[in-house]
């Protein structure tokens, strides 16, 4: 089959001439392939971005946790010291530190604005805990905290990390599903365009059969025409899609979730698979349609 594909791509000047020029069908096929490839690049970018996001959330959140100390103001400092001392002797804790008032103010600033007097407000003291790769025993730590600092509550982020990672994972699958659907739609559209062209050229196929052409000779001419059109259109659409992705604002500039949509490093090579896949899809779709059409001609 590889040989058949190579022979088709290599072409035959005589065989190429047998397919009449068909401006509208040619433009329709190339446009369809370009549009689908453009969408496929976005679906691929979405899928890769959400995959990266899920991994990042999963890793970064899995290795950090917070202890919230909600003690009366006069006990807060003592309990904070007790918690920090306890954490220093807890296996699986790489480091820990209490957030200073400026950091806490910065965390609340989006909601309360600047210059919030956090020192005079009954705001819990936060302690950031960074885990080792092995991690700590959350249940054991909770018991020890309850004994030595009753106002301390461990939040290992598991409760809200899980749905976030699940959502990112689902977006990743959704992206892959969209990519598969786009490729299927592309195959369907190219098949329809090919069938339309084949139906319009039924007389040409019949004449060729009557002068002794084999099915493969006739099919190859149509298959080559459509494969080149689809691959060419898809290449244009892919490059346009990559350019559009590249032109999106960067994460640093906008800071939003969607701005993470894009490719990084070797990921930029992934969309370049779209044109060959489109070409292969067109090859099979046209070949099957052509051979089916030829079977109805004696």
């Amino acid at each position: 089959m590889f040989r058949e594909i190579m022979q088709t791509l290599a072409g035959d000047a005589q065989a190429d001439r047998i397919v009449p020029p068909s401006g509208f069908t040619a433009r329709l096929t190339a446009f369809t392939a370009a549009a689908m490839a453009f969408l496929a690049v976005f679906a691929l970018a979405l899928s890769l971005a959400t995959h990266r996001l899920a991994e990042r959330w999963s890793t970064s959140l899995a290795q950090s946790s917070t202890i919230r100390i909600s003690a009366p103001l006069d006990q807060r400092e003592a309990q904070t010291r007790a918690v920090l001392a306890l954490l220093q002797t807890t296996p699986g804790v790489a480091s820990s530190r209490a957030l200073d008032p400026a950091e806490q103010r910065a965390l609340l600033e989006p909601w309360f604005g600047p210059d919030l007097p956090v020192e005079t407000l009954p705001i819990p003291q936060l302690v950031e805990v960074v885990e080792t790769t092995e991690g700590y025993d959350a249940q054991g730590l909770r018991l020890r905290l309850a004994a030595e600092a009753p106002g301390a509550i461990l939040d290992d982020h598991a409760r809200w990390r899980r749905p976030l990672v699940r959502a990112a994972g689902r977006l990743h699958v959704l992206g892959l599903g969209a990519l598969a659907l786009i490729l299927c739609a592309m195959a369907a559209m190219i098949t329809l365009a090919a069938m339309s062209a084949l139906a319009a050229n039924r007389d040409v196929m019949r004449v060729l059969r009557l002068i002794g052409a084999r099915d493969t000779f006739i099919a190859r001419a149509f298959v080559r025409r459509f494969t080149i059109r689809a691959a060419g259109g898809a290449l244009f659409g892919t490059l346009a899609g990559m350019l559009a992705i590249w032109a999106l604002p960067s994460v640093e500039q906008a800071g939003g979730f969607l701005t993470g949509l894009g490719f990084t490093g070797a990921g930029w090579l992934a969309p370049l698979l779209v044109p060959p896949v489109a070409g292969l899809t067109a090859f099979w779709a046209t070949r099957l349609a052509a051979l089916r059409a030829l079977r109805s001609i004696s």
Partner: protein
Amino acid sequence: MIELNDITYGYDGTALLSGISLSLSPGSFHFLTGPSGAGKTTLLRLCYLDLTPSRGSITVFGVPAARLGRNDVAKLRRRVGVVHQDCGFLDHMSVRENIAMPLATSGLDPAQHAAEIDELLAWVGLTDRAEARPAELSGGERQRAALARALILSPDVVLADEPTGNVDWEMSLRLLTLLVELNRMGKAVLIATHDMNLIRAAKSQVQARVLRLRRGQLDMAGADL
């Protein structure tokens, strides 16, 4: 070369041809005549395996047609030159390209057979029309171009369906002369026509058998022709 044995062909339960037997041997010359709708074209199509009989058998170059696959049929058709009633050209190609097309479909390079193409174009008198599109040709020119295409692979059998249908008497005689010349080269020729004058004109040039299709049956025509 081509033998039809007790052929019946029909559709929707009606037999268009019934009990037809015919043998086209090397060097034979046949006219097939009969009224419009008698089945002349159908009989020709059976000869080049474009139709499958509902009963009987066809043998082409010693091979039973029933045993042939699609690729075998394609290969055998290269040995049967057909001049179709509507000529069957590829309209987007020039006359020269149309004539060369059987070479390409047979895996031969037309560029290496340019001299043969030129020779054929000259033989049918279309040298100066070689680059024209089929739509630009007159009826007679189209028939001659179709004849040239039918002959480019030097077939053993030539089948012509109403080759003089759209041409004047002078051109009819010219085409007839070309077909007689081919026959003298040893090729079997079968011409389907309802033009009795053409058949009469041929009798002075060639030993031809005249077959008449009537009510689905094939008769040898009498001396009245």
